[in-house]
């Protein structure tokens, strides 16, 4: 009991003290009124007229949780896929192009757009996997570097051939109204969150109860063990990446059909959805059921920080800093998969 207390509770308390202390220092630097800042934060994250800000948080959480699920699928399989951004962009692009150019009833356009986005994102991720398996490019770097071609390809396509000239921005035309994701009545929240809720459930089932999920997990915990035990390692790698990329693509599609209704250059990159998704997964050590909670938590930090900026003039980057600090302090406690140990690994298969 005594030992338990010292080993478990005390470090937690000290971590909270540290994080809180850093928060205070940051506010002091910004010369902010503490109470005002905190109430601005809470209001910005969870309040507002008719809970408008809570809905904003949920809307942001939709995309962050989606990216976190994508990342989780590959991380649990031991695949350090940090190319979620590229997969997200490619997915969004595919969704927008289908949404704008495909004729037919709205629901069909949307469904096709979502499928196309998932396929495109999945293939983009698989590309990184192929480079690792057959060329020997470490996935960590390969997937990261593939972000840039994705980004610039998107930028080029919406800036030149598929540009909505009249809008004045590098962006596609609007997706027709009928293909938008409907809003929950009386709110500004679109139904994309339902897709992500469903995905969360599916992901938990996949991780805990299916054969491929079990195999991927074993590969993530001990790749050499998986190989020597005769698991189909290459298939695990490609399958996991395909799923991971497909979820990222889905998130891109939801951003297009739910939030922005077209693809604008930079709209999926600048808000750092992919990176936030990564840290959301790391925060909870890749435990599937906890990932949506953690994603929501980070979304709240971001919208809360924006609220803090509006009311107390604390730059909203405080949100980014706090996210990083939280991860730093839990980094030592994250169990499950050691990422650094595996990043440089090459596959020596025949």
């Amino acid at each position, binding site marked *: 009991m005594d030992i338990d207390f010292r080993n478990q509770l005390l470090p937690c308390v000290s971590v909270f003290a540290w994080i809180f202390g850093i928060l205070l220092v940051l506010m002091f630097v910004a010369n902010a009124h503490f109470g005002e800042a905190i109430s601005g934060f809470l209001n910005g994250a969870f309040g507002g007229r008719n809970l408008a800000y809570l809905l904003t948080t949920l809307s942001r959480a939709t995309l962050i949780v989606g990216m976190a699920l994508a990342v989780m699928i590959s991380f649990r399989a031991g695949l350090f896929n940090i190319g979620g951004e590229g997969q997200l962009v490619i997915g969004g692009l595919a969704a927008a192009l289908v949404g704008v150019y495909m004729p037919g009833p709205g629901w069909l356009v949307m469904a096709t757009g979502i499928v196309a986005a998932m396929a495109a994102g999945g293939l983009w991720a698989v590309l990184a996997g192929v480079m690792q398996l057959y060329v020997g490019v470490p996935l960590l770097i390969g997937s990261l570097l593939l972000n840039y071609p994705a980004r610039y390809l998107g930028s080029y396509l919406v*800036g030149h051939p598929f540009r909505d000239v009249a809008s004045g921005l590098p962006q596609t035309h609007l997706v027709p109204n009928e293909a938008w994701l409907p809003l929950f009545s009386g709110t500004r929240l679109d139904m994309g969150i339902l897709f992500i809720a469903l995905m969360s459930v599916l992901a938990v089932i996949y991780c805990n109860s299916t054969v491929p999920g079990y195999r991927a997990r074993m590969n993530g915990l001990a790749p050499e063990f998986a190989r020597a035990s005769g698991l189909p390692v290459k298939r695990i790698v490609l399958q996991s990446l395909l799923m991971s990329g497909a979820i990222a693509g889905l998130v891109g599609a939801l951003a297009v059909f739910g939030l922005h209704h077209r693809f604008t250059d930079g709209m999926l990159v600048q808000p750092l959805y992919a990176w936030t998704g990564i840290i959301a997964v790391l925060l909870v050590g890749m435990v599937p059921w906890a990932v949506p909670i953690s994603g929501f938590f980070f979304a709240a930090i971001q919208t809360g920080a924006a609220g803090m900026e509006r009311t107390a003039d604390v730059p909203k980057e405080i949100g*980014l800093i706090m996210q990083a600090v939280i991860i730093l302090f839990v980094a030592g406690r994250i169990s499950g998969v050691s990422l650094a140990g595996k990043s440089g690994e090459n596959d020596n298969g025949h």
Partner: protein
Amino acid sequence: MGIDLVLDPAFLQSVPRFLTPILLAALGGAICERAGVFNIALEGFILVGAFCAVLGSYFMGSEWWGAVAAMAGGVGMGLLFAEFSLRRKGDAIVVSIALNLFAAGLTVYLLRTIFGVSGAFRDSGIKGFSGIDIPLLRDIPVLGPLLNGQSILFYFAVFAALALQLFFARHRLGLRLRAAGENPAGLSAGGVDPQRVQLWALVLCGALCGLAGAQLSIANVNLFVENMSAGRGWIAVVAVLLTRGRPLYVLFIAVLFGFVDSLSFRIQGFGLPQQFTDVMPYLATLIALIVLSAWHKSKTA
């Protein structure tokens, strides 16, 4: 275009400007790599260095103080890395990702709180390094425009690459760094704490990355812009991985990247869409990575 371009003095002049930050950061990364610290937070290190350089230069009124402050900032990041990765045993990749975000957030936060501006901070009070004119060098064709008239940081970076080679081979700390990366138990057995050695690696890496940032903010231009490192840290990481931390190869790769990067600027003049020229350095990196990995794989498989 080929030969004219290569002989164009303005083009040659720009190559060192591009390669210096990458070279300095990659050398820092190389030290970590050799010491067994998987540091992929170079992007964040550079960013903090760039910010501190402006901070130091602006408040102390000299570019030298700027460089000192940049190194201090980089070292600070190194110490943070050490605290969370070595002492608190955080996974290096997790710590790296967090520190990159931390740097991105902190620099903007401080930009807004200290200078009250966002986006960019520019002031005539920021003193920067200017080019050094070396009389003899100036008159050599091709090499002259390439090497002459650069900031002191460029010459330092090249020197550092050569010195680091010697350092690893013959210096006490260099030897211990390599041991920390290869078999740290051997160090412990000899009574040297490998974590202490890795701490030194992070300190040196921080200083070099800080200077990389200084080159960006008080040598290439005299101002700080949000997210000024703009992916250079990741290219440096790739350079480190490609070379496995061998300083001379790092130098070679950095020159290559500097060349491609400045080439991409020139090529816009030929009417290619901006996105194509923008993606060039990353594609070049990716291709280099693929070619070298494939070559390596065929050698060892």
